C-alpha cells in the first residue's frame, strides 16, 4: 500500500472567481511543485475544464479526479467526482438542464472560460456559474450516486454556502461518501462543535482559486494506486485503504 498526496478541491479559470492564471498548465505545474499525486478539478457548476487538465496532468504523471462543485437549491456547495468522461458528460447535461438562465456579467463576477493547451480560449460559458441549480441537495446526491459518482458536501464547517450554514446541521440521513473541511478548522475542532459527526470520513482541501493556494492543505490517501475505485475504498476505509488527515 502507498500513500498519495491529494488536493481535491481546485477551481480553474472557468470559475468566475477563479484567477485568470488558473490554466490547466499552471495548475499542473504548481501541483508538481507541491508534490501532489492527485488533484481534483471542481469548478462551480461546470465540468468543462476537466478534460484539458487531464491532458496536461498525464504528461506530468499526476492523476486527476474529474468533478465539479455543485451549488444546490439551498445554496449548499457539494463536490462530486466521476470516473469517466462519458459519465462526466452525463452529469454536465444534468447541470446544463438545471442551471438557471442568468447570464454572467464578467465585469462583476469574472470571466468563465475554458482554455486549451496553448492557453487559448476554446469556450466561454454564458450562464452565470455561481447561481444555484434548481435541484435540492437530496436530488443532487441521488443523481451523483445514480451515475456511480462520489458525493462530498464541501467545506461543511464554513459559515457560508455550506451544509451547516444553509441547513443548520447535517441531515442524519444524507448519503455522503465523505465530508470536506476547510483549512480554517481541524477534524478535532470540528468534532468538538459537531460531536454527532464522529465516525464520518473527512477530507481537507485547499479550495484553491489562486495558484498559491494549490496544495496549501491536502489529504493523504493510503491506497494501492490512484484509480477511482481505490479512492472510493479509501473514503469507505475498506480493505486497508484509508484517508489520513
Amino acid at each position, binding site marked *: 500500500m502507498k500513500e498519495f498526496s491529494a488536493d481535491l478541491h481546485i477551481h480553474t479559470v472557468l470559475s468566475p472567481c477563479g484567477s485568470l492564471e488558473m490554466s490547466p498548465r499552471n495548475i499542473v505545474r504548481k501541483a508538481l511543485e507541491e508534490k501532489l499525486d492527485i488533484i481534483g478539478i471542481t469548478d462551480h457548476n461546470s465540468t468543462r475544464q476537466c478534460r484539458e487538465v487531464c491532458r496536461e496532468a498525464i504528461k506530468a504523471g499526476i492523476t486527476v479526479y474529474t468533478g465539479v462543485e455543485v451549488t444546490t437549491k439551498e445554496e449548499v456547495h457539494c463536490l462530486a467526482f466521476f470516473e469517466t468522461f462519458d459519465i462526466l458528460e452525463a452529469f454536465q447535461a444534468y447541470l446544463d438542464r438545471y442551471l438557471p438562465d442568468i447570464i454572467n456579467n464578467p465585469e462583476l463576477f469574472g470571466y468563465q472560460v475554458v482554455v486549451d493547451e496553448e492557453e487559448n480560449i476554446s469556450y466561454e460559458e454564458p450562464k452565470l456559474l455561481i447561481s444555484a441549480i434548481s435541484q*435540492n441537495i437530496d436530488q443532487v446526491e441521488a443523481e451523483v450516486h445514480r451515475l456511480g459518482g462520489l458525493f462530498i458536501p464541501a467545506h461543511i464547517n464554513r459559515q457560508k454556502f455550506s451544509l451547516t450554514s444553509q*441547513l*443548520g446541521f447535517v441531515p442524519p440521513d444524507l448519503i455522503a461518501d465523505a465530508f470536506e473541511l476547510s483549512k480554517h478548522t481541524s477534524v478535532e475542532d470540528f468534532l468538538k462543535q459537531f460531536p454527532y459527526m464522529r465516525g464520518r470520513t473527512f477530507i481537507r482541501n485547499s479550495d484553491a482559486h489562486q495558484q498559491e493556494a494549490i496544495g496549501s492543505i491536502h489529504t493523504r490517501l493510503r491506497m494501492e494506486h490512484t484509480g477511482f475505485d481505490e479512492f472510493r475504498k479509501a473514503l469507505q476505509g475498506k480493505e486497508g485503504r484509508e484517508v489520513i488527515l
Partner: protein
Amino acid sequence: MKVREIAEKLGLTVISGAAGLDNEINKGYSSDLLSDVMGSAGSGDIWITLQTHKNVMAIASLKDLAAVILVKGFNPDPDMAEQSDEESIPVLGTSEDTFTINGRLYNLLKQ
C-alpha cells in the same frame, strides 16, 4: 395571536401541520440561513423563509417556533410536510415575496 388568525387575516394556505393552528405567536423572524435561525429565532416565533428542506422542521421544533411561512408559492419537500404534521407545527404558504408578507405580518402583529 394564534396561527389560525394570522392565516385567515393574511390569506395564507395551510399546507400541513393543521393540528398546530392554535399555537400562540410571539413575533416573526425572517431568514433563509438555517444556522442563523437556530441562533437567533425565539420561542413562539413565526418563521418566514423560502427553504423547503426537512431540516426547517427540525429547527422549528428545536426552537419551539409557532409556525413556518413559505414565500413565493414554494411547497415543502414531502418529508418536511410530514414532519410538520408529526410536530404539529403548521407550514403556511403564500404567493407573496418575503418583503411583502413581512410588512403585512408586522402591521398585523403591531395592532
